[in-house]
């Protein structure tokens, strides 16, 4: 029988069998973590990733920043008569766009996770089964808030002055994040169905890109052909953009907000159980 031999130079970095034995014997099994506690722990993991891999956040904030600057100064005068007036219109829209684009990355991150051994450990733990997914999206929601805040601060720096003040802006940000949370479940489902992170990214943007542009995020739909206008008017992203503008200006339509919340709840109700089942079966 061989036993561990620790050489002098390696003593500090080797496992110590006596300490290992002590560590094994010293812990009675605690009561199981509650569903909430498990989900929040996964949320904490998501935030640690923002800390350790900040590039992820960079990816999703730079594009919207470019869009704000480009649309405001390049198209603003032509579309709305002046850049200042267009900024008031487009800023809530860009907020919506930037946060919704970020949701695709929830699916990409999940797909990436699946290729690593750590998911096997999560799946072999005695925890509430949706916790890893729900927790990740809670963590992602923090990223949505950070990303959204960047847009708002940039808008303020460029002269955006919302009528409803800080309360209105926060309410709009909150509504966008709630909708994004619901939409994320669609992309986590995609993340479990498709084979590679790139495929998730491509499929995700193939969906979210046209949906965002065929909305009222960039232009008032009045000038559009009738068929297109009809689509834009019922596009939930238009309704979300309208509601955000309303909240920021202080003239929000309650019906818009209700529709946005209902769509978010509907997406969650359908895609959260679907994602959880796919995750378990994987």
């Amino acid at each position, binding site marked *: 029988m*061989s036993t561990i031999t620790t050489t002098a130079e390696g003593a500090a970095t080797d496992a*110590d069998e006596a300490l290992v034995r002590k560590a094994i014997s010293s812990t009675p099994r*605690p009561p199981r*973590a509650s569903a909430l506690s498990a989900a929040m722990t996964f949320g904490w*993991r998501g935030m640690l*990733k923002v800390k350790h891999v900040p590039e992820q956040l960079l990816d999703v904030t730079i594009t919207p920043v470019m869009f704000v600057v480009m649309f405001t100064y390049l198209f603003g005068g032509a579309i709305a008569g002046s850049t200042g007036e267009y900024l008031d219109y487009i800023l809530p829209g860009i907020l919506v766009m930037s946060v919704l684009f970020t949701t695709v990355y929830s699916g990409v991150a999940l797909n990436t996770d699946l290729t690593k051994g750590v998911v*096997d450990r999560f799946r*072999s733990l005695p925890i509430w089964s949706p916790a890893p997914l729900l927790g990740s999206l809670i963590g992602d929601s923090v990223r949505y808030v950070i990303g959204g805040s960047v847009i708002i601060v940039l808008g303020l720096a460029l002269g955006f002055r919302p009528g409803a003040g800080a309360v209105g802006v926060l309410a709009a940000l909150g509504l966008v994040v709630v909708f994004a949370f619901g939409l994320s479940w669609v992309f986590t489902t995609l993340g479990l169905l498709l084979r590679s992170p790139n495929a998730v990214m491509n499929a995700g943007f193939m969906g979210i890109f046209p949906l965002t542009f065929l909305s009222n995020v960039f232009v008032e739909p009045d000038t559009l052909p009738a068929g297109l206008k009809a689509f834009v008017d019922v596009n939930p992203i238009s309704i979300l953009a309208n509601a955000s503008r309303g909240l920021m200006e202080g003239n929000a339509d309650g019906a818009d907000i209700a529709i946005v919340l209902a769509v978010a709840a509907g997406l969650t109700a359908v895609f959260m159980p679907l994602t959880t089942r796919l995750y378990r079966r994987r």
Partner: protein
Amino acid sequence: MTTHPALAIEATGLAKSFGETRAVDGVDLSVRGGSVYGVLGPNGAGKTTTIRMLATLLRPDAGSAKVLGHDIVKEADAVRGVVSLTGQLASVDEDLTGRENLILIGRLLGLKGPAVRQRATELLEAFGLSDAAGRLVKNYSGGMRRRLDLAASIVVTPRLMFLDEPTTGLDPRSRNQVWGIIRALVAEGTTILLCTQYLEEADQLCDRIAVIDRGRVIAEGTPGELKASIGSGALHVRLLDPEQRPQAEGILARELGAVTLKADAAGLSAACSDAGRAAEAIAELSSLGVGIADFSLGQPSLDEVFLALTGHPAEPAAGEGPDSTNEEQAA
């Protein structure tokens, strides 16, 4: 089938297919509580698939199994409450630090507040990772990663632990450390199911071994029984001139018995456990003019065990079973 309370794992007829490939094709296992049970086989034999079914990660197509008295399908959650898994790919989060990994697992298992941080510190120290505690795991060496992986598996001591090729890709020193950790676990009463492709590892650690090939158990017993069944050792010879192999084969067959030809055209081996007889056989080869490049007396290799048990060499199956994701970095 009656439930034997002393059995930690009892599996009957477990089967799982991926598409056309029958990865596991009717596996029966009986693992006594407190023992180390080895599942030995080449890549693609169905080891990982078997372990994943027992650890509730895969649902079997057929058959049933109980882990510590809990059905792996109907009572999967109860099974998860008493086992832990160290997968083939290290089951740790590369984007977090070592300490964060242990805190994460501790919280998920129900440890709270200062207790979880204390536990992480204790484990980092025991596994020689204190200095690396604050570093991201993606910068860890293979051995460190595996130690962290094992530490994460015992944040709360499991009653049964699944280890899937815990030393594949590790250097000999890291491998010895992992073996030491496994022995410590056994000494504290944890039952271990160990998948490995190394006969030596199974021999060193296991009380009983199931040899698995193409999804089926083809032999089962203590290491001593298995080795006795195939001859306890082998004389390995490499010739200077491959052309002389038929001649050498004849001589060794006469002197020692069953001869195995190796993939290397100049290599062959013969069952032999006695150094004296091996020396005589080598002397006989030399005196008859067969040039020898080198020779050694050792345990039968897994290849030889396979050849003896199955009549075919231990080739990885061509299918795409999860076993084929095995990463082999360094020997």
